[in-house]
């Protein structure tokens, strides 16, 4: 039996650092969001829920929320769909499973800023890889596309994002699929089950837990999305790329010129946290009732 003194001694350092530099700041966010606060070192003025009222009437906030939701939903459908599809393809007995898994996951260990530089090169209208490739196969019309024009930039960014995250969820889902006992498929084969039946009646229910966790992880990642679109947009991030995280940063620290609306920015942080927790609860609910059907 481990004694109390040792328990306390072993836990204290972690609790101190985690509490002081992570949990406490999270709680402060709620408090700060009730103030008008125009700079570190400036006086705070209590304004109650005024910042939230202002958010409600702020066009740019709704735009950022819309973009975040688009990343969450459109990105989520593609990422999960592709991750599942490629798990099945790579697991279908083709040569080089470990190699493909290695390559698919690769973008996740590379610096986001490096990835955004790479995609800037891919999308560049004049010298970019995409347009050069189109020109070299004779697709002159397509090769003149301005991939990062205001109309296209969000979707161009999202495509790159899907490429990054598909590899991440591929390794999670594949780990789940690999745990399914082989004899289940053998039994199904003997019973004459079709591919689709095996997928629907064995693969999906047997990976349900992994899928639930994957959805939860994706929701968290989508709601806090900041780094990739921010680096992709460079110094003057265009509003088409604003996510909640980027708008928070812009209101707190500005782009070129500092803005320093700190209270207002923290209110956006509170919205992000609430959104994340609500979505997690919803997903757990939905996935739980569904799993009872099997």
């Amino acid at each position: 039996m481990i004694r109390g003194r040792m328990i306390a001694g072993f836990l204290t350092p972690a609790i101190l650092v985690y509490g002081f530099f992570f949990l406490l700041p999270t709680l402060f966010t709620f408090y700060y969001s009730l103030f008008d606060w125009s700079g570190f070192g400036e006086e705070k003025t209590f304004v109650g829920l005024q910042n939230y009222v202002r958010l409600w009437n702020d066009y740019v906030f709704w735009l950022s929320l819309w973009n975040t939701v688009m990343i969450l939903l459109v990105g989520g459908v593609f990422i999960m769909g592709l991750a599942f599809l490629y798990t099945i393809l790579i697991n279908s007995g083709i040569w080089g499973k470990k190699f493909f898994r290695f390559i698919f996951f690769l973008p996740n260990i590379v610096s986001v800023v490096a990835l955004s530089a790479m995609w800037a090169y891919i999308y560049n209208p004049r010298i970019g890889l995409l347009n050069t490739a189109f020109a070299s196969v004779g697709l002159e019309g397509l090769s003149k596309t301005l991939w990062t024009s205001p109309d296209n930039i969000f979707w161009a960014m999202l495509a790159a994002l899907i490429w990054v995250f598909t590899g991440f969820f591929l390794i999670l889902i594949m780990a789940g699929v690999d745990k399914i006992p082989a004899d289940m498929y053998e039994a199904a084969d003997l019973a004459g089950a079709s591919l689709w039946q095996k997928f629907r009646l064995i693969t999906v229910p047997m990976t349900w837990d992994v899928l639930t966790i994957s959805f939860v992880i994706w929701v968290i990642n989508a709601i806090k999305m900041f780094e990739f679109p921010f680096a992709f947009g460079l110094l003057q991030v265009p509003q088409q790329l604003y996510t909640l995280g980027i708008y928070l940063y812009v209101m707190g620290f500005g782009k070129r010129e500092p803005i320093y609306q700190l209270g207002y920015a923290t209110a956006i942080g509170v919205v992000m946290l609430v959104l994340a927790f609500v979505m997690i609860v919803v997903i757990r609910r939905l996935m739980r009732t569904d799993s009872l059907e099997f």
Partner: protein
Amino acid sequence: MAGISQTAPRRSPLMRLGGRILAYSLVWAWAAFTIASMVWVVLSAFKSKREVLRSGFRLPSEANWENFGTAWTVGKLGAYFPNSLILVTVSVVIVLVVSAPAAYVLSRAKFRGRETLTNVFVLGMAIPIPMLFIPVFSVLAWLRLNDSLTGVSLVFVAISIPFTVYLLTGFFSSLPKELESAAILDGCTDFQVFRYVMLPMAGPGLATAGILNFIWLWNEYQLSLVLLNSPDNRTLPLGLYALQNAMQYTNNWPGLFAGVTIIIVPTIIVYAILSERMISGMTMGAVK
């Protein structure tokens, strides 16, 4: 391998062949795109400025190593490299030193509130990092640690604790209990059990946690962006971001690519050697 499309008896050999070809072409299309674009960026780092603008898909005519020199000296990546290396190494060591004992106690000791405390640690994984920008900045300002690598390393440790504690708690729980009992019967104190029996057995888990945290913190960019203002304190991702912004005006693509190469090569080497361990560490928590 329990393949999903392990062939049913009814499918004809022709269909099987068709399926095989389809699987290969779809998987290779994705993999080829990923490999080609990364390799192309690295290759283009050896081109001259003019070559990048004109040459299309041609290989560099000669190796222009000076792009790396430009990124290293003019782009100051040479100064940011040690910043990153020291900051990340120190942070990873502290994370492990702080998290391993906590995870051990959380997985092995019996005390009231153990589960709640575990959940509080794990909760951190769900908190959106941008939410911390302003309050963490003011905590560091209050400690007079703003705009310092010391301050950032404390924050790095804090944000790495949730995943590390989660991973290590799972790892300690999976170790057999018999050895502990045997060690106690042999007269070991609690601390000796931890130090000489459990910690060595947790070695692989600690290594996995260390590698994953190293990669994440090496690439960490959002909190560094907020917390580090002076150019001298920049980490590699911030330096590369500055290089990319400057590139908009200088049009020095190969210089930017040299910077990209400098920052991605260390992580790719680590990943190439340890990918199996990293991937199993990533998936351990998700697949029970």
